């Protein structure tokens, strides 16, 4: 705005100026309020359309996976895990079961045997002995994450956003890491399309913050499109 302040203020006494300025100010406020609503609405709309579309499009894969898991060990097909969502509230995240039924007990044993190697915040290991044969394949193809489209539809998650952590992981967070919990968690984020599991935790938080700062509907679509090849080639997933 190239107005000399002195000239701007000298126009004060002209008739009806102040009324017009107030009207302009009010219009500007209304437009901005509408813009904020639109940004939120677009994100939620994209979530609903995307998750319904994905649930429909992947329904054959769902059927095959359900059959395979049932055939392998007759245990439950779905697996509900408590995760930390937006604002630190807990929600149940759905997955296809890819591990044996008593996986948590075996993990405690493994942790005891492997005390020295574990220093990071997240627990992930290659060639995990608890993963079933079918589980290995659906993990490689990221099919185990597909039931999360149901969480997206319910509004607990979003298509794009920081991955929801486990309550156990959040208990070890520093205050600066909590910033990534301020938005709705998502299925995919910058971390997934970049190095996937090969980046350290601080770098992951930095990527999440980068996403939170520059999030928009178009950026979300771009990330979703980039996720497809990352999932198809199974880069970094184990």
């Amino acid at each position, binding site marked *: 705005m190239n107005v000399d302040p002195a000239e701007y203020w000298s126009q004060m006494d002209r008739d009806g100026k102040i009324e017009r300025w107030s009207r302009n100010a009010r219009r500007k406020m209304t437009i901005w309020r509408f813009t904020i609503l639109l940004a939120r609405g677009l994100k939620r709309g994209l979530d609903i359309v995307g998750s319904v579309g994905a649930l429909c499009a992947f329904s054959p894969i769902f059927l095959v996976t359900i059959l395979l898991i049932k055939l392998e060990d007759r245990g439950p097909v779905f697996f509900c895990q408590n995760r930390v969502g937006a604002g630190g509230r807990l929600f149940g995240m759905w997955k296809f079961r890819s591990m044996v039924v008593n996986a948590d007990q075996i993990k405690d044993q493994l942790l005891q045997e492997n005390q020295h190697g574990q220093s990071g915040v997240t627990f992930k290991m290659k060639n995990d002995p608890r993963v079933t044969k079918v589980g290995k394949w659906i993990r490689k193809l990221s099919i185990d994450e597909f039931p999360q489209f149901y969480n997206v539809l319910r509004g607990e998650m979003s298509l794009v956003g920081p991955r929801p952590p486990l309550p156990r992981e959040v208990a070890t*967070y520093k205050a600066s890491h909590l910033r990534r919990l301020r938005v709705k968690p998502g299925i995919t984020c910058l971390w997934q399309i970049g190095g996937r599991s090969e980046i350290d935790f601080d770098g992951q938080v930095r990527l999440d913050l980068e996403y939170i700062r520059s999030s928009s509907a178009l950026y979300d679509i771009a990330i979703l499109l980039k996720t497809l090849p990352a999932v198809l080639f199974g880069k970094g997933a184990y």
Partner: protein
Amino acid sequence: MPSDLLELVLPDWSGLDTVRRSSVPFGLWTIGDQCLLHHWLDHAVNQGLTTVRVYAADRPAAVRRVLEESSLWPVKTEFTAIASTADAPAAAIHVDWLPGVTAPPAPASGWELVERAAAMEKAWLDRMAGEPDFNLVSIGFSCRIHPEAKLIPPYFIGDHVFIGPGCEIGPYAVIGQGSVIAGANRVSHSHLAAHSFVGPVTALENCRLESGILLNFKHQARLDQIEPHLLSTLEKSSPAVPLRDRIRALFLYLRLRGSRATAKTFVTFDGRTLPGDPEAGIINRAAWLPLVWQGKLPLYGVLPRSKEQFETLDADWQNVIRHSRIGVFSYADSQGSHTPADPAEAIHAVYQASLPPETLIDAIASFTRSLTSADLTRATPLP
């Protein structure tokens, strides 16, 4: 005492808050991106503590609510309301400054209190500017910042902020979420609360703008009425009395028709002039119900009391009642005492004031349903 416990006591400076006249206690004032109590929760998380116990004397219901809503921090929070700050255990830390730094001496006047908040914010911005991720955390999400705007660190910009062309933001500027800075503005050493509007070609320095009220620290001035195209608030004006209560008051008024109100008026302790006699009981209500319909008085709340009646109470009871909402019908009514002249009423008033406002509404509403016009015309109190 277990070592993973942090005990905090919030200062009681409600009597000092003569300038800003905030509705929340000092411990809940926004410093930078979050309130002071949340900065201490951050501190507890960084220290690896698992439990935070908070003591507060000033508006405990508000503190309790904020603690219940802070689910983001993976710590267990406990809350205890105390009568005065001296009742807190000696080991508890006073939340009068940012964590990890020794606090300056306590303020003595209203201006010193708001300047303390400003100084705290400056210290917080200095600390944040030293963080490696300053670029990532200093601006919130879905902001629109014009490429010609100049940002001078340290600054903090919340979510959904619009910054127009030619602006100069900073140093030491905090812009709350949802604000609109129209263009060609200079904002430095200032705090704009959430949802502020700053009109074009306006400069702010050493200021605090909150719900359309501007505090200037340099000249120690408080401006209550500002032309809305210069500075104003984008907050949706939430009516003091919800429509549902107004309609309920109208129905009650029609049902209790025929009762006569006295012609006397009195001044309440917070300077409001009401019709009626503070010594009289339920007979005043017919005169107060039209005020609810006009949106001037809430339907449910603590009974209004005159200045003299207020000053006969204990200091800590005054403290609890001072900030509570005044209403036509109170919890004391449902317990059978209808006037502040009745000593039992003060006990019920303190009980009601220390709880969140919606807790006792059912009890009060069932009392109003049982009222008849005969009750209101009777001069003697109800049995």
